[in-house]
């Protein structure tokens, strides 16, 4: 940074991503509130800790190998080439720490940590999406292994493939998913579905004839405020999906703009229109479809944004609104149909809100943006319906559902997936609750003794 203009550019970028990380942290405050509110009193502490410990476990593993996967795997590997050398992202690189610049890293040493953290917050989100659906019966030990797999392995493979300027899916399929309908939401929803099958339903969720019973949120206020906070963090997510300042006019001039992750132009202004219009479309449709049920109305706001996210860098705001609104009845009905038909107990509707809405969002972008360039590189395939459909299958099915099902089944085999039925009935907080009662009783006894002796 030997002149003020270069310094301004670099430090602005560093600060830009740092700020997105702080805003995105609210997603996890929201997820914790939401899940605890959705769980019954007897499971509150377990539910809270299950989600909280995603943070350190996914963080350390994303430091150890997740970040390297993103830069090493854009070619598959072995689809469009081999492993890509990524000296700044390997765990023992000097660039993975405080570094003053110069040398082999070509500027990466200045933004490596903030860019890593922005991706890491997406990793926590992927794991938190799964966390909500499995509450009140999963073993923490099993869940945290699954959290590392979705948060530090599978989602970041899909990001390298379809959310990287040189990813093979972008090159060959014309895959376009600017704000991660498929890359985060479809994969996490698919993974959750894969885990739910071997995990099974909570005791009492289905009657003998298979009719589902409602296990309503214990605290609807906490659930809705949690979802509000997730919306807030989602702003940070949208901002973090951009490169804030990039020379987009290749060859014959200089034109600086914000870009999407593929280095193709968009504007922060445009995505702000689309974020709010798709949120509105989702909320309005959700209110009508669920007849004003707060849980589903709030969730539909989120699903609305997710459904429009694949193309929200380019859509018109009214298009974003209609795509969001049209997706809601489909995912709402699909959720209850899958629940009845396959006895799937998704406690918070995460498979529908993230998985189905994300899948639909990717597919719809294939029609809406048909023929658009997927990348500034003119040799890459253009956006098309088939490429997007195959992309959605890869996200939801190949990298989401399949590993979720396989690894959860393996954990089940080793008795690491589900708590004993007695503990489920007593509540997962039973030891803590009894110890709390004993502590209170000891104080009451001491107070009584004090009064009697004075």
């Amino acid at each position, binding site marked *: 940074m030997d002149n003020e203009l270069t310094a301004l550019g670099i430090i602005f970028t560093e600060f830009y991503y740092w700020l997105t990380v702080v805003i995105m942290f609210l997603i996890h405050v929201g997820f914790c509130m939401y899940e605890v509110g959705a769980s019954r009193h007897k499971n509150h502490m377990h539910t809270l800790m299950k989600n909280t410990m995603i943070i350190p476990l996914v963080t350390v593993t994303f430091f*150890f190998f997740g970040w390297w996967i993103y830069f090493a795997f854009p070619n598959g590997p072995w689809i469009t080439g081999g492993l890509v050398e990524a000296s700044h992202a390997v765990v023992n690189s*000097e660039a993975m720490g*405080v570094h003053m610049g110069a040398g082999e890293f070509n500027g990466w040493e200045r933004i490596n940590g903030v860019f890593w953290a922005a991706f890491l917050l997406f990793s926590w989100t992927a794991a938190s999406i799964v966390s909500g659906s499995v509450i009140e019966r999963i073993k923490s030990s099993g869940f945290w*292994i699954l959290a590392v797999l979705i948060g530090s392995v599978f989602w970041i493979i899909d990001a390298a493939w379809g959310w990287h300027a040189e990813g093979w899916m972008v090159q060959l399929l014309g895959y376009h998913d600017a704000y991660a309908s498929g890359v985060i939401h479809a994969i996490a929803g698919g993974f959750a579905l894969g885990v739910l099958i071997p995990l099974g339903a909570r005791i009492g969720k289905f009657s003998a004839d298979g009719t589902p019973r409602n296990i309503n949120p214990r605290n609807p206020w906490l659930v809705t405020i949690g979802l509000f906070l997730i919306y807030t963090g989602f702003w940070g997510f949208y901002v973090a999906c951009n490169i804030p300042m990039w020379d987009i006019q290749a060859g014959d001039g200089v034109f600086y703009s914000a870009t999407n992750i593929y280095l193709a132009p968009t504007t922060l202004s445009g995505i702000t229109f689309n974020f709010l219009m798709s949120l509105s479309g989702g909320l309005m449709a959700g209110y009508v479809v669920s007849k004003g049920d707060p849980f589903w109305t709030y969730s539909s706001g989120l699903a609305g944004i997710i459904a429009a996210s694949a193309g929200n860098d380019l859509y018109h705001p009214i298009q974003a609104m209609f795509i969001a609104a049209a997706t809601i009845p489909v995912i709402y009905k699909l959720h209850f149909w899958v629940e009845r038909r396959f006895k799937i107990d998704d406690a918070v509707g995460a498979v529908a809100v993230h998985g189905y809405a994300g899948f639909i969002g990717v597919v719809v972008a294939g029609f809406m943006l048909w023929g658009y360039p997927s990348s500034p590189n003119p040799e890459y395939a253009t956006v098309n319906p088939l490429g997007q459909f195959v992309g959605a299958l890869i996200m939801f099915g190949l990298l989401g559902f399949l590993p979720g099902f396989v690894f959860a089944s393996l954990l089940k085999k080793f008795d690491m997936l589900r708590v*004993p039925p*007695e*503990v489920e009935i*007593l509540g997962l907080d*039973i030891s803590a609750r009894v110890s709390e009662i004993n502590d209170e009783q000891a104080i009451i006894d001491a107070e009584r003794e004090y009064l009697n002796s004075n």
Partner: protein
Amino acid sequence: MSTGNFENWAGNISEIGAVYPFVGSETFLAIAGVIFWLWWHVKQSKIENEDHKKDVEKWGGKDTLLKSIDKEDPEFP
């Protein structure tokens, strides 16, 4: 004497490179970090299984379970 790559901030800053102490120990730190992470999973799993075992032994009888369900029942006096 410094545990880092430099003794003071004078001169060309960019030539300093990494500024954390014991530059060169990154591979050792990475191995130690991975071992700590794996150890944590093993330890946590043992603690959780022991807790569940104790819970079932202490309160897993049918009568206790029925009582605990009654406590959850809003219509139970």
